[in-house]
């Protein structure tokens, strides 16, 4: 297809605003999928994605549409990951497009997730096509949604299309607007092939399938191409597109979207954002490539130490389709062998843990998550620390920088007070407050990433009875007074509980964990001191009093068997305990505390 008849677009929407329903309608209306083949919600593949309302992988679909002007157009819908944890992936998928549909629920209005994604799309200079969906709902409020478009996103409200994806209203208009308002792709004018890699996935038969958007030149089987950032040169085996199932094509031309396969075995050989170039006559790569770096780290341990190998296998399988996921072996005195894993963000971390549990049936426990700190040393060097265990000696530390995010919180008016105190409790500073409509406001705040890791989202949900929403985007690093908090039993540090925390939080956290540990550590034959320490200074202390006796008061002939079995059990139990110094602690106790802290 010539570039003038191609449109590449993605859809930005808050969860449940109707992205999937609308995509399905577009597939139907263009005849890409026959009505009777139409399984509801074709595009969302993974259960977990469905449940959480987010898409981790980009799914491109190619549709052919005969417009009112009588001409046929190739419309490529690139379904982008819906969460800023995957901001880089999102930015790459968006940069494969010239435009984006922005869906807003007519009854709900603009939500936080939408704001962050629209900002990304605007940075990419995409043509944004607002669609106010669900106008069939009795409490639909189109003027409100239009007003919010203007106020919050600076998009003229009257440019919005009105639709009901469910009822099939306005679908034609959307398709026409895509043709009319989204620009056609233009060749870059470079001397040869340039194709952007915006995602990849693993297929057992084909190896790595690379998703691409051709910006210049064309892709055909048999071509030798190279990928400058990964340094690989391969011969293309197959090219194709999706409808939504993959189908083979002769070639992919300028402006087109699809896939290629080559002899690529592991997804890590392909980097999202890299450019595919002609190997003999390479043009310059497209701009915007970044190595992706995990933002959040946490140790994942099998609850049953024998499951370490299966855990590693499961993780390597996950990594096949999730190249942003990193892991390496680590070990903890309390938890045995496990993996230190790096994630793009909180949601990514939760998804990986959830998939390990669900798809691989692994019984796992995760340690307190940590962000990546930049530690500036007195000698002028800088170290990145994602594991409190590796924090250099404080005497050599000049200062510690922590990652900060810009968070968007949208909440009902009557929870503003609660939100503001929550944000300040989380060491955040509010930068902007905007009225969304008669009942809601949007707060923008800078908050240390570390503070939103644990319960920020849950707290918002509970303070606003479920009406609040939150999203965030990275916003650089700030100097911060971070300290290492260690938990000790009888003077021995329990590594599983060590964490870098802000000085203002350390004491409370130390106290809370100490109190919890006191509940779960069984009494021993001597007193056990549980202490929280910041760099050697004790900030909290609890005592598990000594067991003063351990003897069956009465034991005669008839009891011996029963008693022996009890003692044997006690003995077995002790074997499963982790010795921290001289104190025996059941692994369950660690798990109990990690679960709740």
């Amino acid at each position: 297809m010539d570039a003038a008849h191609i449109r590449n677009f993605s859809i930005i929407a808050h969860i449940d605003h109707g992205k999937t329903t609308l995509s399905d309608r577009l597939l139907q209306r263009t005849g890409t999928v026959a009505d009777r083949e139409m399984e509801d919600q074709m595009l969302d593949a993974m259960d977990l994605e469905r449940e959480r309302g987010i898409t981790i992988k980009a799914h491109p679909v190619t549709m052919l549409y005969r417009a009112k002007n009588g001409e046929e157009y190739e419309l490529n819908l690139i379904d982008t990951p819906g969460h800023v944890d995957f901001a880089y992936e999102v930015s790459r998928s968006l940069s494969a497009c010239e435009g984006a549909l922005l869906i807003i629920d007519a009854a709900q209005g603009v939500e936080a997730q939408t704001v962050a994604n629209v900002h990304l799309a605007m940075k990419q200079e995409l043509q944004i096509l607002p669609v106010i969906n669900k106008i069939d709902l009795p409490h639909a409020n189109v003027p409100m949604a239009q007003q919010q478009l203007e106020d919050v996103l600076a998009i003229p409200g009257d440019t919005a299309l009105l639709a009901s994806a469910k009822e099939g209203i306005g679908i034609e208009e959307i398709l026409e607007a895509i043709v009319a308002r989204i620009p056609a792709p233009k060749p870059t004018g470079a001397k040869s092939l340039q194709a952007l890699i915006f995602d990849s996935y693993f297929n057992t038969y084909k190896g790595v399938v690379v998703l691409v958007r051709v910006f210049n030149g064309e892709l055909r089987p048999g071509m030798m191409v190279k990928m400058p950032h990964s340094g690989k040169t391969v011969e293309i085996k197959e090219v194709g597109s999706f409808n939504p199932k993959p189908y083979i094509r002769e070639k992919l031309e300028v402006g087109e979207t699809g896939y290629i396969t080559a002899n690529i075995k592991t997804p890590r050989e392909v980097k999202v954002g890299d450019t595919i170039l002609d190997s003999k006559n390479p043009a310059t790569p497209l701009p915007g490539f970044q190595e992706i770096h995990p933002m959040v780290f946490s140790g994942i341990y099998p609850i049953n130490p024998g499951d370490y190998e299966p855990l590693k296998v499961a993780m390597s399988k996950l990594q096949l389709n999730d190249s942003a996921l990193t892991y390496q072996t680590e070990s903890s005195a309390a938890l045995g062998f496990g993996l230190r894993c790096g994630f793009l963000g909180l949601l990514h971390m939760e998804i990986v843990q959830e998939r390990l549990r669900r798809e691989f049936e692994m019984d796992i426990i995760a340690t307190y998550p940590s962000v990546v700190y930049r530690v500036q040393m007195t000698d002028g060097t800088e170290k990145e620390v994602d594991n409190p265990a590796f924090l250099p000696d404080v005497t050599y530390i000049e200062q510690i920088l922590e990652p900060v995010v810009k968070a968007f919180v949208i909440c009902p008016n009557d929870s503003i007070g609660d939100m503001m105190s929550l944000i300040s409790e989380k060491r955040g500073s509010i930068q902007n407050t905007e009225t969304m409509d008669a009942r809601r406001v949007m707060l923008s705040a800078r908050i240390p990433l570390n503070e939103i890791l644990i319960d920020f989202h849950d707290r918002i949900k509970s303070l606003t009875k479920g009406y609040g929403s939150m999203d965030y985007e990275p916003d650089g690093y700030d100097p911060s007074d971070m300290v290492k908090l260690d938990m000790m039993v009888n003077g021995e540090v329990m590594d599983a509980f060590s964490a870098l925390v802000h000085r203002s939080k350390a004491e409370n956290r130390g106290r809370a964990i100490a109190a919890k540990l006191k509940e779960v550590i069984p009494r021993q034959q001597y007193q056990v001191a549980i202490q929280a320490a910041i760099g050697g200074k004790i900030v909290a202390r609890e005592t598990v009093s000594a067991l003063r006796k351990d003897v069956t008061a009465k034991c005669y002939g008839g009891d011996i068997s029963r008693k022996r079995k009890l003692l044997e059990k006690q003995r077995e139990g002790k074997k499963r305990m982790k010795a921290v110094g001289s104190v025996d602690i059941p692994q369950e106790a660690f798990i109990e505390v990690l679960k709740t802290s």
Partner: protein
Amino acid sequence: MITVAPISFAAADIQPTTSVLAAAKTLPGPLVESLYIHVPFCAHKCEYCAFYSAPPSGDVIHRYVHALVKELELVASRARPKTIFFGGGTPSLLTLKQWETVLEAMHRLQLLPAAEWTVECNPATLSIDKARLLRSAGVNRISMGVQSLDESLLDRLGRVHSREMVFRSYHLLRDAGFRNINIDLMFAIPGQTLDTWRKTIDEALSLGTEHLSCYEVIYEEDTPLYEQLKAGEFDVDEALACSMYEVLVDCLAENGFQQYEVANFARHSTSEAEVCQHPFIPSWACQHNLGYWRGLDSFGLGPSASEYVDGVRSKNWSNTDLWITQLERGRRAKESAEALAPLSRAGELAAFGLRMNAGWSFTEFLARTGFDLRHDWSEDMEALISRNWAVRGEDRFHLTRDGIRFADAAGACFLRPEGSASQGSKPKSRI
């Protein structure tokens, strides 16, 4: 370990063929010198009690007595008891007539006389005639379940007797000619104060018994007392329980009692030393119970009774009807049997022997089990010694006064469970 699963009721007609059970049946072999007989009846169930016993109904005691005679007949050829112990339940609940039937059978089966023959009595169920009958038949030791000498605590525990009955029964027993009397006492009873406990000890001492068994309340599952504890009706005061124990040990020592086991204290008299002279065991110690802690073979008859014969520990059904029915058909009513591997058996013996203040003589342990504590348990002994829980002598290893308070933790290190990694290899255990 070979454990025979409980034999189901339906299988009652089928003679068990399992080798372990076969071994548990009495076959020719060395004579067994200890005999325990369980009498599963009580006038009223005490709040704390988890023994197998219940108030009798109909003619069940009558049928029990005949079944017991039957069971005695089945083991008689292997039994030449030096110690006999009638426990329960409340053996003194049997009528004179019923006792005569039992005693007659024991005589006929040449199970008498025994050097030590104990019968447990409840102070509420003794008469001078019954006492005389038992004494004349050869019973020479009475163990009285007293528990407390405080009326309100007796009520609290659901005991059927009063304080007065204790004193009356005690004198009655002396009058009947018993020279070896034990009293069971309990401490850390909910509501008991250190003072009432002191008073009970003093009063018990002034009676002048030869032996005292004093144990802390045990909260056994399925007892009313346990349910009350779980329901939060009272709290356990561990510190108080410990003080009571300390008071007990000191007080009894000052009054000429020697502790020889966690819960057992006896007088020592060189002239009257009747049974044996063991350097660390007082002369009035209960020989029968010592046999358990020393790992001697013993028959156990009556419902729920356990026995240890030919390396097999087995247990009768805790079901009086079933037990009677089986014996009426001419066979013993075994619920289960287990035979431990030699090392496990030795470990068990080591563990439970440590409950005795005498501990173990290395040579005696070696002779009894074929294993040497100095080899297979040396690390465990060292660990206990380093905690001041135990002392090692030339030919002796025993717990200290502190160590006795942790006899379970100490004993657990000596176990050698089958199938565990430590079986057969050099064990390393932590305390």
